[in-house]
């Protein structure tokens, strides 16, 4: 038996929850597929802290609970279009088990991940993503009494520092690569129509008070014997060391666009292109949240609702929210230009510095490669289990390489999952069968 739904939403963060709830309340049969153990995405993970957003999260989770079929812990590994009377079929996997689910419409709410850039020592235990460490703390990691340097770029560094402080850690320094001049302009532009964001920023400022906030500086090395013990921070001219127990480092966010690209949705400058109704270049496939542009919870919630209404044919309701969404989008653009990466970060990795962590490919062996494909063939860069999700974006920044079209399965899966036949031979035929048993 193949299951089917009017709408499948991939991703249970704010955007996905809003899309699912909205479409279900408009009468659609909706399913959410999400690879995390519980709904909420990265931003609404766990219950520690985050009092300001807990109420919103609870509201959306409740709207989804009784109306939507939720598949937590299931990973979308492949999708084909044109199976029977359905627009497409999504292959999902959990614990080496497969489930194929048919859909008439699909919402991609696949969110974002952190950009990691290689520097000497970045593979040491004790070096975590900034959002990564926040996720670990929300998932039970005890950091009380730990000294932590938080570094990289983006507003996330402040949120992470606030969360870690709340959890009892001692933040040694926040190291932001963007120069103060750009940050200052951004703060000023915040005053124009984004009071909510300003208050949010001020809130973080309160809980991170007294912590050195270094701007225009970056970590150029982490060192330690088997575990990080110190980091070197530089402004280009001045260099100083900080003793630390952990380093939380991330260079802002990049969209998870692998599933969108597999489905042939048009992607530009790393984000999925959508029309005013959040529809991608492929009819019936929508995209919401960070995957269309890094912009935070409010943008994701608005986009999710627009996609939910649009998928349900309620274009009138969708249009009501367009202006608010557009304001958020403008905010997102300004935000992202503020945290543009400085070119010095391209020179941190030495010849021996690992770039591809899965296959231990050092930077020096990549220098003579002209393309990502050449690097894969000659060095195995990007050939490990993460399938280039970490080193692909890093080499894009370091060498300007384009990452290739993703191929199924999107995540490593059990052989039995790969061997599973699609019900009807959907990949090769355009036959529009009408029976489903």
């Amino acid at each position, binding site marked *: 038996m193949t299951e089917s739904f009017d709408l499948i939403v991939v991703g249970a963060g704010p955007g996905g929850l809003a899309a699912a709830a909205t479409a279900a309340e408009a009468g659609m049969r909706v399913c959410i597929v999400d*690879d995390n153990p519980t709904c909420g995405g990265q931003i609404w993970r766990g*219950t520690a802290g985050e009092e300001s957003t807990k109420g919103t999260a609870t509201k959306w989770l409740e709207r989804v609970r009784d109306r939507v079929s939720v598949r937590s812990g299931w990973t979308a590994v492949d999708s084909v279009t044109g199976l029977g009377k359905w627009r497409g079929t999504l292959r999902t996997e959990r614990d080496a088990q497969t489930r194929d689910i048919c859909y008439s419409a699909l919402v991609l709410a696949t969110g974002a991940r952190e950009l990691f850039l290689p520097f000497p020592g970045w593979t040491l235990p004790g070096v975590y993503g900034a959002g990564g460490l926040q996720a670990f703390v929300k998932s039970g990691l005890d950091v009380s009494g730990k000294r932590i340097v938080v570094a990289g770029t983006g507003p996330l560094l402040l949120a992470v520092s606030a969360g870690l402080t709340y*959890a009892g850690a001692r933040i040694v320094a926040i190291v932001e690569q963007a120069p103060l001049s750009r940050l200052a302009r951004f703060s000023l532009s915040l005053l124009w129509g984004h009071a909510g964001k300003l208050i949010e920023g001020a809130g973080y400022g309160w809980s991170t008070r007294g912590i050195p906030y270094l701007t225009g500086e970056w970590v150029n090395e982490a060192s330690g014997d088997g575990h990080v013990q110190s980091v070197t921070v530089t402004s280009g001219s001045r260099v100083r060391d900080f003793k630390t127990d952990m380093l939380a480092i991330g260079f802002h966010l990049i969209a998870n666009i692998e599933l969108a690209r597999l489905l042939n949705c048009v992607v530009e400058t790393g984000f999925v292109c959508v029309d005013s109704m959040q529809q991608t270049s492929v009819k019936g496939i929508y995209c919401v949240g960070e995957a269309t542009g890094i912009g935070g919870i409010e943008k994701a919630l608005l986009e999710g609702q627009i996609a939910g209404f649009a998928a349900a044919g309620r274009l009138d309701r969708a249009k009501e929210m367009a202006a608010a969404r557009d304001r958020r989008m403008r905010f997102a653009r300004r935000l992202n230009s503020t945290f543009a990466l400085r070119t010095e970060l391209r020179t941190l990795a030495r010849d021996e510095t690992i770039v591809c962590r899965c296959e231990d490919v050092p930077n020096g062996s990549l220098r003579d490669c002209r393309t990502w494909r050449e690097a894969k063939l000659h060095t195995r860069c990007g050939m490990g289990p993460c399938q280039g999700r970490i080193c692909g974006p890093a080499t894009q920044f370091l060498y300007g390489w384009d990452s290739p079209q993703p191929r199924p399965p999107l995540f490593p899966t059990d052989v039995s999952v790969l061997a599973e036949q699609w019900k009807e031979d959907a990949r090769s035929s355009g036959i529009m069968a009408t029976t489903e048993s």
Partner: protein
Amino acid sequence: MHHEQVMDTCFSITMNGKSLQVRAGTTVAVAIVQSGSLSRHSVLGEPRQPLCGMGICYECRAQIDDLLHQKTCQILCRPGMKVATE
């Protein structure tokens, strides 16, 4: 005082043959870090621990019961679970 845990129940799992107490809601990746274990050695033998915390990087992969290469940052600890890192 910092943690207001609603469900403060603890149970034990087996980490590399040793018993480990964890709180309900703890992911396996966090249990690995908390126990002081490495999640794996890299192909050149470097020690590694989880990095991204959100199911992307695969640095946290480990064997859980009979299943190899599980993304432990996306799996919650269950009572009696057996975790084996490389």
